[in-house]
């Protein structure tokens, strides 16, 4: 009996030790959400901001708006991204949705189609400030008929992070500006002795992988821009072929197929990759993470001909959910939240790019980096909007993984992807960009 007791106590103690760090892993917010003292009508807002900078920002912004007016009280709730997506899908059937919901821009089209978001064209259609929004992010809030369901809140894209010390060591003076120069740089900066790869990117089997792979598939080669609508075109496989060569020659880790974007960024910061594909949001922490170990710079992604570049637009939208308690007031909140002034403030506080041309954020850190990301936005491709984007997306990362892991030729892998993507686009084409 005593023995049994001892064993039970010991195992419970061990389990407690093991599980503690899991429970302790909370996003630390320094200021809390102020309570609803005025007794205003409460509107729930679900978001998945989990980086410390934007997790704090959303609370600050809601506090500010709640103090500003008496009509409604915005109550932000954090739900993990994956869980939030599940909740929207389930909510499409059960009707249990928040009043305002955050969504990753390429997913919005699917949720609009599923009926998760409410048509607010009446409220936002003749808002005169809407012309100041960049067309790419704004288009992701609309359906095929041009009806609007919400507003974009922040945007980002991908650039190349360069370890300048590694580049110098390899005898290269200039940051690569074309795919050929990039290939050479990756080759020369790979150093097995320092266990450093030339390049790191994320090719994971989720939307993140597609996000990072797209610039290498849709790029300008020999003066012509390739397109998702024809993946069997002559140069469509050029970029993926180069990336496949990196993996085959030990210049990029095959583990990229399991890496999230955070992982490939961490590889760069740890000096394990001389070049890496990183996102705008990484600028908020890159200085601390590199911690003076080497010089770094941000450059346009060299995905094709010299002087050209391509990238992918990312970002989050906020939509008014179906069954919102007070649509008028919820739209008013979005109009304030996405006003030029608040946009600029958000961009600097959370390390994002604004989604409207008249917002002028003054970054007091990584100014050059942000400038580069702002320039890259001109070459960045929006994903969709397309209700069947997830299926298209799956084909893209699957094609890349076939090349990286099975050594299949890029042309064959993309032809197989094309066999699935082409009929989808034939039925519902992607919008012109």
């Amino acid at each position, binding site marked *: 009996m005593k023995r049994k007791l001892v064993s039970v106590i010991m*195992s419970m103690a061990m389990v407690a030790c093991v599980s503690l760090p899991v429970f302790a892993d909370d996003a630390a917010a320094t200021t809390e959400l102020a309570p609803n003292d005025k007794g205003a009508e409460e509107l729930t807002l679900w978001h998945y901001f989990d980086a410390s900078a934007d997790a704090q920002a959303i609370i600050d912004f809601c506090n500010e708006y709640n103090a500003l007016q008496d009509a409604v009280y915005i109550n932000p709730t954090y739900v993990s991204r994956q869980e939030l997506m599940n909740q929207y*899908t389930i909510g*499409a059937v059960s009707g249990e949705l928040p009043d305002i919901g955050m969504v990753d821009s390429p997913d919005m089209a699917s949720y609009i189609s599923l009926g998760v978001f409410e048509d607010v064209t009446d409220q936002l259609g003749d808002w005169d400030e809407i012309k100041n929004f960049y067309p790419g992010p704004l288009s992701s809030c609309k359906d095929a008929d041009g009806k609007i369901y919400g507003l974009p809140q922040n945007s980002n894209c991908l650039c190349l992070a360069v370890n300048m010390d590694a580049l110098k060591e390899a005898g290269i003076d200039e940051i690569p500006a074309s795919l050929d120069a990039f290939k050479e740089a990756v080759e020369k900066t790979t150093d097995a002795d320092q266990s450093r790869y030339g390049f790191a990117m994320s090719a994971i089997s989720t939307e993140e992988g597609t996000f990072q792979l797209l610039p290498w598939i849709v790029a300008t080669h020999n003066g012509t821009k390739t397109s998702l609508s024809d993946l069997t075109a002559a140069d469509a496989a050029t970029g993926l072929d180069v990336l496949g060569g990196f993996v085959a020659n030990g210049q990029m880790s095959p583990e990229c197929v399991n890496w999230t974007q955070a992982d490939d960024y961490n590889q760069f910061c740890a000096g394990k990759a001389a070049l890496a594909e990183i996102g705008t949001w990484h600028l908020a922490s890159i200085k601390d993470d590199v911690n003076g170990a080497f010089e770094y710079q941000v450059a346009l992604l060299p995905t094709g001909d010299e002087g050209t570049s391509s990238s992918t637009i990312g970002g989050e939208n906020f939509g008014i959910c179906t069954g919102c308690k007070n649509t008028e007031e919820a739209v008013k909140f979005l109009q304030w939240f996405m006003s030029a002034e608040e946009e600029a403030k958000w961009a600097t506080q959370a390390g994002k790019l604004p989604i409207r041309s008249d917002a002028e954020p003054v970054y007091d850190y990584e100014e050059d980096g942000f400038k580069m990301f702002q320039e890259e936005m001109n070459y960045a491709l929006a994903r969709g909007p397309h*209700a069947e984007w997830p299926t298209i997306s799956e084909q893209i990362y699957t094609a890349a993984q076939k090349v990286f892991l099975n050594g299949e030729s890029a042309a064959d892998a993309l032809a197989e992807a094309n066999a699935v993507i082409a009929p989808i686009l034939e039925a519902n084409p992607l919008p012109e960009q």
Partner: protein
Amino acid sequence: MAAVAKQKHRGKGIRRENEGYAFILPGVIYMILVVGYPIVYNLILSFKDTNVQNLAKGTSVFIGLQNYKELFQNPTFLLILKNTFIFTFGSLVFQFTIGYLLALFFYKKFTLAGPIRGLMLIPYMMPMAVTGLLGQNLFLQDGLINKLLSWIGVGPLPWLTSTATAMVAVVIMNCWVGIPFNMLLLISGLSNVPEDVYEASSIDGASKIQQFFRITLPLMKDAILAVLMLGFIYTFRAFDLMFIMTAGGPLNSTDVLGTYSYTLSFTQYQFSKGSAVAMVLFMCLMVIGILYLILIVKGEKDE
């Protein structure tokens, strides 16, 4: 008074006949609402063409067995079905044999056997998400497993970046969780074997090996069957381990029916196809369940 007594008597007759139904009623209602309804709903959904385009419009139509037909013609689905069986049998074989050996070992009453047995349960008590993350780190290119292997001159193996080895890694992690569970149930099975049978047999001159095969195994038949059955169900419907550890990748090599059904429904919004996969999963488990019932009933008859 007499009338009341008579009524009571008559009432008693009615109650006698029906009181059995009253007892099973709560169970039946519960089963119909909580188990039956979702299954029927899912079955109906699997015969429709509900997807992202028509869910909100409500324009989905019945398409009969079309989803199932398409699934069984889809090489990805066939690969996933195969993966599910490989994962299940791979896990069952190792976690059962190792679990059984450990059960036999820890059933011996040596010093600290109890506390150590308790500690062995930690992997089982850990949330699967933690196990998945742990597996992800252990099987990295420069992770602990490859480091250990390099000491004996093997590797480094690509583990989670190769379609050939990813499943092995996932099976190993699942065994890590399953072994203590098997051990625990088998120890309780062992304790049901009466000591005096061993005493009697050793007086008759039976060797330890004879004792194991002629006494321990046959007397534990029910426990072993239950362990294998539970193990099969738990393993066959696995989801969280691969969802966290590999996300079904690389290239679907660790995708199983559970994860595939989820991906179809919640990532691709092909709800009816996702339901059809879930139905296939359900049917497989149903067959195993019926087999188990037949074995149990047969066993009872033999006795």
